[in-house]
């Protein structure tokens, strides 16, 4: 069967549209998030609060969303994105000279919660979450 130029163009456009979609549109499952937190805490429970997450309410571009996290007295902070294909984003470790706060820019596949879990100097864990609305997702390229 020969394709007319019009057919080829339409097929090409369709294929291009498919390519533009995020690859695995499935968000991280609640289990994946729980597993990531458990891996960080060694299974210990987290208490709410004591961790601040700074993020825009609405992110125009999911490819680069500025966030910052801080927790007084934290030794390290784990950052997760509950709606990404994989929830892990980054883990910050603070030495004695550092202020327990950090900022970076991250990819968010769509509107979702950012979760920050802080390991405190006394070995306890604290947790906070924040919803970020994303207008254009940024995981599939």
């Amino acid at each position, binding site marked *: 069967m020969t394709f007319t130029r019009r057919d080829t163009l339409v097929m090409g456009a369709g294929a291009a549209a498919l*390519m533009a979609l*995020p*690859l*695995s549109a499935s968000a991280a499952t609640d289990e994946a998030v729980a597993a990531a937190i458990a891996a960080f805490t060694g299974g210990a429970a987290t208490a709410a609060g004591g961790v601040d997450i700074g993020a825009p309410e609405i992110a125009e571009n999911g*490819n*680069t*969303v*500025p966030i*910052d996290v801080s927790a007084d007295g934290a030794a390290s902070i784990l950052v997760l*994105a509950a709606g*990404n*294909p*994989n929830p*892990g*984003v*980054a*883990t*910050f*470790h*603070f*030495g*004695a*000279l*550092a*202020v327990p*706060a*950090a*900022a*970076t*820019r*991250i*990819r*968010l596949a769509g509107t979702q919660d950012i979760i920050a879990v802080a390991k405190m100097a006394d070995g306890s864990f604290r947790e906070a979450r924040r919803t970020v609305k994303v207008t254009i997702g*940024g*995981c*599939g*390229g």
Partner: protein
Amino acid sequence: MAAPKPRVKVPNSAKVGEVIEVKTLISHPMESGQRKDKSGAIIPRKIINKFVATYGGEEVFSVDVGPAVSANPYIQFSMKVPAAGDLHFAWTDDDGSVYEMTKSIAIA
């Protein structure tokens, strides 16, 4: 990809005990391993996976970096300056390459 280029913004000097802000950037595509090329094959992951800052030889701040960190990773932190010294930064790529930069801080 062009060789990753690190850039760091740090004050040249500080008073003893002053807290300074450190802003770092490195050019890097941070290929997440989620994208596919034209033939449908997954473009393999290739990211900066670790960032470490040391001062006077001691680790001050480090990050385990994942593929969800944006391309050209920007990382900012703050630290107290105990004395004059060298602030050393190292970024590690998945392929084992390490990119480094050092900034000296004098006491004002």
